[in-house]
């Protein structure tokens, strides 16, 4: 779907290559191994926390909690499997346990769309429009239910496959598809009809690109 290089430019690398015996050395109380473990997985975990919380301090708190927990339960980590799905799941749960306490009330969709339609006539400039669309999407992402939000972050930000995203979210692939579908549907509904077609681009070109 889309240009692969353009997509990868926006994605967080799923995982750096995991050293073979990293978890085993960590289980043997090797602190250097734990540091390597942290450096290997900190970026995707932090990106997830940032994408959900949009707060660097909160994201750092989540990151620390997540790795402290990983160290404390290191004996239970399976050396044969990547610990990243587990780390992501812990990070997501930590994020939502914190975000739920401070989540702002989402702006009603109808008023948002009305404002944008009014703005459209006042500011037809394409750059401004693009910025507005991104802002609408940011608010739309914030307003999504946690499960749908998690789905789009795992699938569209991290670029996990459907199966990997489903494993992290602890659901099956069909459920993951359904969550993505409803998330996109909700985001589509936030955009007024006038803004749904990018200006100056024939539809046929977009389909065949």
């Amino acid at each position: 779907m889309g240009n692969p290089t353009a997509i990868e430019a926006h994605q967080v690398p799923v995982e750096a290559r995991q050293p073979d015996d990293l978890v085993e050395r960590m289980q043997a109380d090797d602190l250097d191994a734990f540091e390597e473990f942290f450096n290997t997985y900190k970026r995707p975990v932090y990106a997830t926390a940032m994408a959900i919380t949009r707060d660097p301090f909160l994201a750092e708190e989540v990151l620390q909690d997540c790795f402290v927990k990983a160290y404390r339960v290191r004996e239970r980590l399976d050396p044969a499997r990547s610990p990243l799905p587990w780390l992501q799941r812990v990070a997501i749960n930590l994020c939502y346990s914190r975000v739920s306490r401070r989540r702002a009330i989402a702006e009603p969709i109808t008023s948002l769309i009305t404002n944008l339609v009014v703005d459209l006539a006042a500011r037809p400039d394409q750059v401004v429009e693009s910025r507005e669309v991104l802002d609408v999407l940011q608010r739309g992402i914030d307003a999504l239910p946690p499960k749908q939000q998690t789905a789009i972050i795992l699938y569209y930000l991290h670029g996990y496959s459907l199966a990997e995203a489903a494993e992290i979210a602890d659901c099956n692939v069909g459920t993951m598809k359904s969550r993505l579908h409803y998330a996109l549907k909700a985001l589509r509904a936030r955009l007024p009809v006038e803004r749904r077609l990018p200006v100056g681009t024939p539809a046929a070109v977009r389909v065949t690109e």
Partner: protein
Amino acid sequence: MSCRRVCRELLWLARFGEFGPSSQPHLDHLAGCQHCRDEVGFDRALVQQLRVALAERVQDAAPSPDAFQAILARTRQPERRRWFVSWTTALGRLRFATAMAGTGLAVVLALNMEVVRVDVPDTGPARGGEAVLQQVPRMPPGHTTLVALGQRGDGGPAASRPDPEAALMWAATIPLAPAPAGGQEEPAEEPAEAPSVELRVAFRPFQIHDPGAGASAPDDPDDAGVVWAPVELSQGEPS
């Protein structure tokens, strides 16, 4: 297939990259339908914008350089144990405990109560068809709940002797109201007073009969310790 349905399936296939040989009808439709092309095109543009929006959230974001040292320091500390709970947690637990206690009480009551139904013959429009005695305590094994019906003031067998079987039989065979108007036979005599049904329930106390009580014991051992609790049911005026 309708355009709307094809469009919905096209969006699904395009989102998850599931186009295959079986998707040829959808692609054929797409080639000839401007509306579907617009919808799929918009969906692709939306996903592209969504990726940009998500990337904006994590742009130039990196944990602080001393994050690992902070983690290491925390791992060296003994794990904190929560000796207290927040008031919201306590309130939640209290609610749960209350709900469980209420449910338990309801179960206990339900297991120890039974509804005894006493059918009264329908002898007139104002008498109703049945009387229902609600919530009689369940008797212990070996004892039966006794229910007796009698007619007040006529000195019938149920009023004089608490024989439940005889009382029920008697109540079921004696009409309590005159025959309805237009009937072939006139009633033998009008009742002086509208009869009322008296419902008697016998509760047998949980005690063991002492055979050594001698003369103080009742003649019929089945009647020992029976307490009669009369309940009057209004039957209304006969029509």
